[in-house]
């Protein structure tokens, strides 16, 4: 580790050390608001630094990418963390969360996500993944005396640990096969010394299972609805965006170099994508709980995102990144709306509770509707451009059947998204008013909304950026 490395690591240092500092401060002054504000400032500062301070090294310690790709996601997840903190503020105050721990864990999770997204070696992957997973174990069960939260925490913990087992064994096998943890070498060894294939393939497959668990690919998705439902909305938001996004980002980053592996795994990924999209969409149909519905929706989205990877083309990868960003914005926005409408007694989770709410809180529900439509892929929201890009890449790469199945899943998805919108606007029930929310939360909603609309109408903004960061 050199000084240059340290400079390159500045954003992470800000996040991690800031988290530790807040932890220390909270020991003396456990007041909620200052800590949250501090956390937000730290996250924003990290994003700012990541954006402004160019990295002097290409790779940090042989573990992490120091280039624009890593920076991009660092900024993204830092901003996500900041927004999660914004919507957590009222949770912390109203539900007596231990502010110091909470904020510190969120920031640390963001660190882990940033690291994971930038991982260039299996060790980096492992460390980054475990960092935020550990934080999430606690964050999910953070609300004390809440049985759903505890249950969600337990499920995530056990399954996550099992997934860790798979991942480590997989890493071990890959290492056995290739003799290196570093992606390029690992891929290269796989490609050149083809005779090690069975071990290596087994390793990659086990790693894929662990990743599949994190991003909820079917059949490793079962935890998703339960955990989303049990965890508090901001944490669910983090789970849906950063947790999945960082893993996907790492996968994209890793695969951007070695497409040979993709060819091997192509048919497996094909099946996984199809099954994930369809099962996710169909499972979501009868859901009556908005958070569970969003969970299944995230399953569908991850399946769709996988299409971008399967394409094994620059088009596919940039489409996947675009999709990832757009999905994250919309998803976080929806959870923000839930948090925004909820009060300290309970969260707005049941779709029935939303009946007629659209006219009680027109703007927030309107934003929710737009975000849901974006998730569904309705023009002119960004969700449409994302799907467009993915299908474009798929057809370009000759995967028309995948695109058609994606269409089918989209169609089914529309059904359940629309159900929410129907509940919001198309019933005459007089819904009781919800919490008015705070301006902090509202600003998150506005950011998400404008992000969705701007990226939907001017996708070039993001695509150009992606073109720059993709190796």
């Amino acid at each position, binding site marked *: 580790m050199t000084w240059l490395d340290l400079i390159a690591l500045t954003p992470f240092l800000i996040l991690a050390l800031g988290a530790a500092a807040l932890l220390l401060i909270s020991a003396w002054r456990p007041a909620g608001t200052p800590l949250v504000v501090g956390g937000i400032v730290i996250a924003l500062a990290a994003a700012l630094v990541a954006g402004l301070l160019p990295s002097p090294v290409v790779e940090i*310690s042989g573990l992490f990418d120091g280039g624009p790709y890593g920076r991009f996601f660092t900024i993204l997840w830092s901003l996500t963390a900041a927004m999660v903190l914004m919507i957590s503020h009222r949770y912390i105050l109203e539900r*007596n969360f231990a502010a110091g721990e909470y904020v*510190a*864990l969120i920031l640390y999770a963001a660190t882990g996500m940033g*690291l994971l997204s930038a991982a260039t070696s299996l060790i980096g992957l492992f460390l980054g993944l475990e960092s935020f997973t550990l934080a999430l174990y606690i964050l999910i069960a953070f609300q004390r*005396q809440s049985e759903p939260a505890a249950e969600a925490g337990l499920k995530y913990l056990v399954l996550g640990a099992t997934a860790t087992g798979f991942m480590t064994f997989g890493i071990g096998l890959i290492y056995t096969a290739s003799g290196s943890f570093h992606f390029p070498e690992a891929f290269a060894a796989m490609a050149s010394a083809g005779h090690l294939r069975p*071990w290596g393939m*087994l390793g990659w497959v086990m790693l894929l299972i662990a990743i599949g668990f994190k991003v909820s690919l079917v059949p490793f998705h079962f935890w998703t609805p339960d955990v989303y439902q049990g965890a508090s909305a901001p944490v669910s938001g983090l789970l849906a965006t950063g947790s999945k996004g960082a893993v996907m980002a790492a996968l994209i980053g890793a695969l951007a170099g070695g497409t040979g592996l993709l060819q091997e795994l192509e048919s497996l990924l094909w099946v996984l994508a199809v099954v994930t999209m369809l099962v996710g969409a169909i499972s979501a149909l009868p859901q009556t709980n908005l958070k569970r519905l969003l969970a299944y929706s995230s399953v569908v989205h991850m399946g769709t995102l996988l299409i971008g990877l399967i394409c094994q083309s620059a088009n596919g990868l940039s489409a996947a990144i675009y999709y990832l960003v757009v999905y994250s914005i919309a998803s976080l926005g929806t959870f923000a709306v839930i948090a925004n409408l909820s009060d300290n007694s309970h969260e707005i989770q049941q779709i029935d509770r939303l009946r007629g709410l659209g006219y009680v809180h027109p703007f927030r529900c309107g934003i929710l509707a737009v975000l849901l439509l974006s998730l569904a892929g309705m023009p002119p929201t960004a969700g449409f451009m994302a799907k467009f890009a993915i299908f474009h890449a798929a057809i370009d790469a000759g995967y028309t059947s995948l695109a058609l199945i994606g269409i089918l899943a989209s169609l089914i998805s529309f059904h359940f998204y629309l159900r929410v919108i129907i509940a919001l606007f198309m019933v005459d029930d007089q819904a009781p008013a919800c919490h008015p929310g705070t301006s902090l939360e509202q600003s998150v909603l506005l950011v998400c909304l404008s992000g969705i609309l701007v990226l939907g109408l001017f996708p070039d903004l993001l695509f150009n950026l992606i073109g720059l960061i993709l190796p």
Partner: protein
Amino acid sequence: MATVLFYILSVVLLAATLLSITRRNPVHAVIYLVNGLFALAIIFYLLGAPLVAAWEVIIYAGAIMVLFMFIIMMLEMVPREPPAGPGWQRWGPVALISVTILFCTLLLITQDPDLAAQHGSPYMVPPREYGKALFGKYALAVQIVSFQLLFAAVGAYYVGKGDGASRRKEQS
């Protein structure tokens, strides 16, 4: 000699683990597992990783298993009476799927042409080299791991601590 020892230890390891995972009583399970871990530690040593072997004993068999034991005792998880009915209903499908998985895995592993490959010279990592790598090449990783431990500690404390929150609520 070492080779033979490896196979013996492997058998011990597997047998102990098998016994461990099938025990009804967690205490017994932990004890068997500790046995297995000792065998594993020696295998590590035989494979040229003395430091790892030492840590296996200290951290795993020592710290972690003791922690397990402590929690088991604390929560009084020793079953008071044996459960009714045979375990086949539960173990049957599990055994089936496990054996199938095992079969497939082994098939895959044995498919590899390098199955019997074996570098001539034994490889023994001297602690100095190890330390250099750990705090040189992997210093960043160590830092990250240390942060992990810190936050894990914070988290464990937060989760495991008594109902401070609710008590505070009651007071106010």
